[in-house]
Structure formats: structure tokens, C-alpha cells
């Protein structure tokens, strides 16, 4: 589990400015939060189940970014 991935998701759920930035350039935002490359790849692929397993996050948390 990566605390950084979770931190980014929680930050996205609070901050519309960060959401705008993420929509334009997800990689920069993920790098800034230190989201591991494996998680970034799963997010890019839209692999919600894979992210759940790899990051140890629940379904709802993953639905925040993959829907």
C-alpha cells in the first residue's frame, strides 16, 4: 500500500484547483505526490481492481479516480 497514492486521492477529493491541474497533466500531479510508477500505470490503464489490490484501497477510493 502506498500512503502517497491515498494522500493524492484525498487531496483530489478536497481541492478543485488540484482536480483541474490533474485533468490537464495527471503525471505531474502524481509525481509531485510521489505516487509509485506501478500505481500510475494502473491509473493510466483505468485498472480499478488492479489499483485496489496494489494500493490497498477500497472500491470507493479508487472510483474517485477510475470510473
Amino acid at each position, binding site marked *: 500500500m502506498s500512503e502517497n497514492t491515498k494522500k493524492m486521492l484525498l487531496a483530489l477529493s478536497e481541492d478543485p484547483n488540484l482536480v483541474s491541474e490533474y485533468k490537464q497533466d495527471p503525471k505531474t500531479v502524481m509525481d509531485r505526490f510521489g505516487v509509485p510508477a506501478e500505481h500510475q500505470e494502473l491509473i493510466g490503464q483505468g485498472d480499478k481492481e488492479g489499483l485496489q489490490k496494489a494500493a490497498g484501497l477500497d472500491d470507493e477510493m479508487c472510483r*474517485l479516480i477510475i*470510473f
Partner: protein
Amino acid sequence: MAAARLSVVGTGIRPGGHLTLETRHLLAGADRVLAVVDGLGLEHLRRINPAAESLQDCYRQSPGREASYAEMVRRILAALDRGGHVCAAFYGHPGVFVWPAHECIRQARARGLEARLYPGISAEDCLFADLELDPALHGCQSYEAMDFFLYPRLIDTSAALVLWQMAALGDVRRDRFEADPAWVRALAEVLMADYPAEHVATVYEAATFPLSEPRREPISLARLHQVSFSQASTLYLPPLAAPRLSEQRLARLGLVAEDLGPAAYRRYRDR
């Protein structure tokens, strides 16, 4: 432990971002937090108060919504019995379509305890923003869909009409969340007594996650039965026309239409 008191708060529609500063303070200072929120919402609450407990299991433990709500109230009151500041947190606005929030306030006060309801961001607030609907412009009628169908109201077609909980339409035993197509057709027929069949309504759902978009699906009343309704669906009917100024009411006060000062909303509405 301080005397028991109850604060009932709302966590808004989008977990995290919709928590008000006031609610954050109440949560942080509470001795116990009991929350009816989903996993992400609970995660946020636990960052504010690590002792936050979920009441979501009340839905699984009890058959039907009435029993689930009664169990939530029982557990909130049981927490109050232990004294201290109890904060009950509900998804959305705690006073809007949340029977257990009102009931636990009533029961706490009946025990002589201090109890207060605080506002949260409701689905209606999201609807006003996402549909850019200003209730000052035309006025807004707002009903629970099934209640609206069962207990006829006078419809003012010059004002907006909002019908909530479309998925519960036809849920006569209050134990499911799937609209009955026969009830949707019957509701559309009721509406078509006042609106033309081609009047375009909007099926609205607030975005519950910041990266997703709200649902804003236009549909004519004649085709209303063809759309699907989720638990989050609301039906919005725009007004048919602007309301008419009453010369008679103005005359009672010795005024005529020309005496009314400029009002931007009126110019926009009367276009």
C-alpha cells in the same frame, strides 16, 4: 465527562471537499462521532477525528429503511447515554431527506439534552449549481417524487419543479431503490395534465466524485419511462413561462407596473 449534547452535521455530497469548516470543528471536538457515510467519507472523518464510527452497517443489519433508520437513532442515543459531545454525521445535508437526523434530535431533546442540527451541502445545492438554477428567478417547487404522486399538489408551471428520489417511485414497502416503470408512466401522465408532452425535463444526478461530471440528461415527459433512474436521480422540470404581474395587487398599494424599479432577475425572466 461533560454533559451529553448532540450535534448533527452533514458531510455534503462529495466526500472531503463539501465538509464545511464549521462541521470540521464540530467533528474534531466531539467525544464520539457516528457517521452514515461511505468509505471515502469515513476516511476523511477519521482524519479529523480518529474515533469516527460508521453506522452504514445499520442498512445491512435491518430489512427495510424504517428499521435501518430506527437502528441509527438507537445507536446515536446510546452514545449520548455515555455523556460528552456526540456528533452524528450524515451524507449530504442532515436536515434534508434524513429522517433519523431529525428523530435523534427530537429524542435527545425529549431527554432534556442539548441537540442542534447544522447545515451541510445538499443535493439541492448541487442541483442549483450544476443546472445554474436560481430559485429567485422563477421560484422552485420541491417534492419527494412518490409523495408528490400520492398526495396531489397544485402545480405552478411558472416555477421550476424538482422531484426527488425518483428511484424510490413505487417503493410501497420502502425496501428497495428501483423505480417501478408503471409508476414512472403514471407520474408522467400526472405531469402531462399541466405540461405539454414534449416539455423537456432533466434527469439530474450530482457528481459524487470531483473528477466525474454530474448527470444532466434531457428527456421529454412523453419519454420519461424510457430513462433509467438511480438512487441519486432527481427530476427537474423547468418553468413553462414567466409568472404574470398582478396589476390588482399593485393597485391595492396604489402602484402601477411602471413604478417597479429595475430588477435584473425580472428582465431576465421575462425575456
